[in-house]
């Protein structure tokens, strides 16, 4: 099996309430070197066999049409996960 990863992040201009809460928790726990945190989503799409360009294109289209909402989110990366075991 090959695997395509689609990373989705909140748009930079959208305040990320979850990221802010995580940042506050980190600081409380002594991780005070991080100025801010943003929280996004990672989707792993598995395909039969190798990851082809066609699969990458389809994953990008799915990312833009379904996996993200362009009003609040951006698809920031679409790539083959080389660590996935190919059957």
């Amino acid at each position, binding site marked *: 099996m090959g695997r395509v990863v689609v990373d989705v992040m909140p748009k930079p201009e959208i305040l990320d309430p979850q990221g802010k*809460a995580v940042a506050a928790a980190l600081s409380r726990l002594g991780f005070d070197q991080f100025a801010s945190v943003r929280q996004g989503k990672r989707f792993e799409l598995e395909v039969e066999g190798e990851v082809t360009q066609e699969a990458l294109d389809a994953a990008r289209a799915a990312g833009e049409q379904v996996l993200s909402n362009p009003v609040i989110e951006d698809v920031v990366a679409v790539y083959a996960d080389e660590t996935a075991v190919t059957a």
Partner: protein
Amino acid sequence: MSRIGVVTFPGTLDDRDASRAVRLAGGEPVALWHGDADLRGVDAVVLPGGFSYGDYLRAGAISRFAPVMSEIVDAANRGLPVLGICNGFQVLTEAHLLPGSMIKNDHLHFVCREQVLSVENADTAWTRDYTQGERITIPLKNQDGQYVADEHTLDELEGEGRVVFRYQDVNPNGSRRGIAGISNARGNVVGLMPHPEHAVEPGFGPDGAKGPRSGTDGLRFFTSVLSALVG
């Protein structure tokens, strides 16, 4: 008697309340199922609140692809009155019938309160029985209620009178410009986060002028659409 469809998705919670509100207003509620591409000839549609598909992916994101939604989008574009409440509002934004989106409340907590709103546009199919600027109190209960849109879209909504409801006294979730509800350009599609269907019957609503739980400020959403349909 006008027939008002009430859609049930997997995870919808307030379909019974919405149907009851339609009946109390004098209409006939008609149950619509997410999996049926059939509006059963209804005169208007309510998308009720809840957590359709568990809010997986994003609130309303998966419901948008339900067979009943393609029928609703087509009919709404032809002028069918459609009201989206809470999760229903989220579904309408995901379906591109209304602009913008909802993200988590700015304070991250689930909020459940009796919320004061101002009616900013009393000319839509769902607000014509209110008066412009009237203050109403209906319940608000959600996690992802913070309305966001880009500045251009917000200016357009304000300029065209499409901000239909604004939070008063307190902004309970960080919504841009205190927006609680909006409409499409034609005014037949309205979405809001608070719940009019929970304030339609004395004894079961928010506290009102006549005492505890006496508030029925939500009922006129449903009488509005019934009078809009009669013409």
